[in-house]
């Protein structure tokens, strides 16, 4: 069993903002708050000197035998003096606004745009923007922004960048801005932004080709091929003019060739409608991530082609949606995939079919993404309903499964971003 030390290190810190807020306002919040305020009130330099003052104090405890206590006194006096001066360096009136993209791919850097507004009548100097305390999976990739000066009434835009390693919704605590107290060891009272919320979505695997299995060509309730019916339908051919045909459909070349008026004839076509099923009972957290990455790649590939993603099933939860051909956006699917959680118990074929069967009549085919090959039990039962089924099995270094419409994908190939032809 692999231990996630980063997560273990944050075991006492609630993972969600509501839980953190509950902790702050709870019974122990008032006890912790002074320490938090003290810690927040020190700069990196101040914290270093504060910590080192303990070491110096330890070495200087024998005041009669050495002179180290002089150094300790100087350090303590510097810190104490600057701490007393913090309250005179409040930023009022001042605003801080933070914007962030709504979603970021797992492992990629997200850029927070921080805008500082000096609404006061006094110029401000030496401002430090303090990013929020990040959850276990986050890490700042740039040092926190510092602003040498901001004139009265002006605003400035700075950036903070971080990287996150876990999918799902991230709701960060507020960003803060504070003025540096002279000597640079402490900060004045801070001004806070609102909380920042964004989604960390799975990586999109590079699926370059995906052949879907044959199933029903047209199914009831199908969606027209063209997004605007009557204006951009596919050309079927030409035929003689009949009274009532729109004049704009007249085909000049055919009319000239035959000598009688001919019109263009159009036919509405229907997309194939596809359901994507993800087996969330993957062997290991990494395998689930690879499967979700592959599912995201499949959805991205299909949504660019002549197909509609009509259904997304994660474990035993069904998400009814329609993606592709301007009817929906890939981001919708990514948002859903971002919040998929691993099933603690294996999700059996019966459970999947029970939630899938009401939707099967309107699907052309189903693509199953799994990490554990079940000898095609689920696929056969889907095919039994007259719907085509392809199974994509993510495998590690073990043998590749074989069967009808089964494709195995090496996990390494997904994580390496290799082009996948399925």
């Amino acid at each position, binding site marked *: 069993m692999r231990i996630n030390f980063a997560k273990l290190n944050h075991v006492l810190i609630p993972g969600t903002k509501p839980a953190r807020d509950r902790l702050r306002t709870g*019974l122990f919040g008032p006890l912790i708050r002074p320490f938090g305020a003290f810690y927040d009130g020190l700069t*990196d*330099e101040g914290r*270093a*000197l504060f910590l*080192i003052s303990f*070491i*110096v104090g330890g*070495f*200087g*405890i*024998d*005041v*009669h*035998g*050495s*002179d*180290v*206590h*002089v*150094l300790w*006194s*100087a*350090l*303590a*006096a*510097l810190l*104490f*003096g*600057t701490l*007393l*001066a913090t309250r*005179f360096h409040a930023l009022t009136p001042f605003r801080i606004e933070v914007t962030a993209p709504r979603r970021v791919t797992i492992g990629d850097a997200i850029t927070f745009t921080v805008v500082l507004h000096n*609404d006061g*009548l006094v*110029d401000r*100097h*030496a*401002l*430090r923007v303090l990013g929020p305390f990040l959850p276990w999976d986050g890490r700042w990739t740039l040092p926190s*922004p*510092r*602003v*040498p*000066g901001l004139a009265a009434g002006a605003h400035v835009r700075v950036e903070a960048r971080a990287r996150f390693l876990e999918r799902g919704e991230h709701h960060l605590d507020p960003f803060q801005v504070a003025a*540096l*107290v*002279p*000597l*640079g060891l402490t900060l004045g009272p801070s001004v806070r932004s609102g909380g920042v919320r964004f989604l960390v979505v799975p990586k999109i695997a590079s699926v370059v080709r995906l052949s879907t299995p044959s199933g029903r060509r047209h199914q009831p309730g199908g969606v027209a091929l063209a997004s605007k019916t009557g204006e951009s339908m596919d050309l079927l051919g030409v035929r003689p003019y009949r009274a009532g045909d729109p004049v704009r459909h007249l085909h000049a070349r055919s009319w000239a060739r035959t000598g009688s008026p001919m019109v263009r004839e159009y036919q509405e076509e229907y997309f194939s409608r596809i359901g994507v099923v993800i087996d969330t009972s993957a062997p290991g957290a990494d395998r689930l991530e690879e499967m979700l990455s592959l599912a995201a790649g499949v959805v991205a590939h299909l949504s660019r082609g002549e197909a509609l993603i009509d259904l997304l099933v994660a474990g035993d939860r069904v998400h009814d949606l329609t993606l592709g051909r301007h009817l929906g956006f890939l981001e919708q699917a990514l948002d859903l995939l971002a919040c998929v959680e691993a099933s603690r118990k294996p999700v059996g074929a019966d459970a999947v079919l029970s939630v899938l069967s009401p939707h099967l009549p309107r699907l052309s085919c189903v693509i199953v993404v799994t990490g554990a090959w079940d000898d095609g039990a689920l696929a056969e039962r889907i095919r039994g309903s007259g719907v085509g089924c392809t199974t994509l099995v993510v495998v590690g270094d073990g043998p590749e499964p074989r069967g009808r419409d089964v494709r195995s994908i090496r996990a390494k190939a997904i994580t390496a971003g290799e082009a996948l032809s399925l």
Partner: protein
Amino acid sequence: MIAPDRRLAGASMLVIVALLGVVSGRPGASAVAAALLLGATIAGPRIDIGVGLQRLLTLGAAGLGIALGATGTATMSLLSPGLDRVWLIGALALLFAAAARLVVRAPERGPVVTTVLGVLALTAAGETAVGPIYKLVVAAHLALGLLALRLADPGRPPLARLPRRTLIVGTALVIAAAALSASATRALFPMSDWTTAHITLLGMPDATSGFSDRLWLGSLDGMQQSEEVVMRIEGPRPDYLRGAIYDRYELGRWRSSPRGSAEDFTPTSAPPTGPAAVAVTYAGGSRDRYFLPLRARAIVAEGASVVVDPFGTLRVPSGAATAIRFELGDPPAITVAEPSAEDLRIPDELRATVVRLAAEWTRGVDDPSAKIEAIARHFQDNFSYSLEFHQRRREALIDFLLDEHRGHCEYFASAMTLFARAVGVPARVVAGYRVTERSPFGGYWIVREKNAHAWTEVFLPGRGFVTVDATPSGAPQNAMHGLGVLGALRDLVAARLAKADAATGGNLGKLAIGATALGLGVVMLARRFLRRARKTKPSLRLDAAPRPHPSLARLFDALARAGLERAPSEPIERFARRLDAAAHPVPATLLRRYAAQRYGGVGELEPLLGELDACAARLRSPSR
């Protein structure tokens, strides 16, 4: 061109090197360190390497510092005592590591770590009594270090561009910090002394009892400084409490000769009552014996398998002595073994000296009792009490009698015993406690480890064994004293807690934890209940609405006096339209601007408030 921050950081390190040159007595090593630091400062940040290589470089430089500090010998230091080699090595290693970081273009974790290394090097350099130079070096190093950090920070404007207010605050901070530092340095000495005197002693581990079958001269030394409470005594003062009796002396060591086996002790059926009854409670720890006065009767001792040895000591081999009750008076419940030849034996090495001195000190006295009294008085008058004793000869008692003329109770008891034997009186050494401290609150006696004492018991015809204490009255064990108010209160609480613990069968701790948890639960429930009770239902009462800004209220007031009163529920914009209609365009415009600022964030509030006040003033006195 050297980066200014690196230049200052290098200068701050060079100050420490200069200090090392003064305190270490190793001018060569200091010169090498200075040259290296100067070179690194002049070279500036020119090496561009990754974190791993940086660490290697720093470690290598530190190793170089260690090698430089470890080789070579010290000449005379300018200060006495000079800096130990270990501290010099530490300081040089840290300085060399800092020098290595000065030449790296982007050192790991920035200039803060370099500053920390410098402060640590300064710490190592201060591990001797340097004097005022150290204060100067600390001030210079911190000033240069802070300036270097300032210059290295891109988020801080140059000093020339700072407003005057910031410069004044910065200067005031430096002055205040210097004053604080000087005061703290002065205050640390008395604080350290007080701490050493109080907290260190209280924090000492339980003093080990010196009572065993053997008594080495000096074995009570450790106990003499311990404030650990041994027992609390209710009732009349028993004075000398016997714990161990020794009769055979050999080269600084007393032991008990075999006189038969211990017998089971039979307690008195009824516990003693009345004014002479004494109740002793042991304060904790493992005790293997009860301490009793020579004359104790009606003894009731707690604990299983209590035995009494031939010398009259009450022992609990299981180590579970907890409480004992007895009565002072004759006849004693425990009989002490009759004197034997062992009680008159004087070691050969001591015989000549002891006999000669005893004869000299008791010249002209015939009565054994008077002789004993004369010897004891001689010790008390001509010898002094001291915890310090310098042994030169093989036999410490010879040093005590001939040269030192001072020592603590064990020396006096030993000498007194041997002198008594020299004049023909059987005598033994007894170790135990003296009872001298009384609590003003609880009305009980307190016996601490520091009250451990040794004395002599001599056998006088017709009187039996009698206690003789030859230790001068200056000994702390012999001085009667009370507790301070705080000490007495603290001990009273401890005594009550010990009683309660005994009453609950040793479960007081568990009960306290349970009660605390219960109390916390009650407090939390009460807090929740009060919170819920305090929550008021939302109200639409007008008086609960937020009051307008004072400037706005003043304008409304002035307009009302002019006959233009705003209805309580009238929006500001509608009121402004009404003012327009009533030919009051100025207040109408101001109110519109206020509404725009208040609800839309448009414009500046401060100047607008001034204009509202001015308008209100004009309305009140139109002549203005």
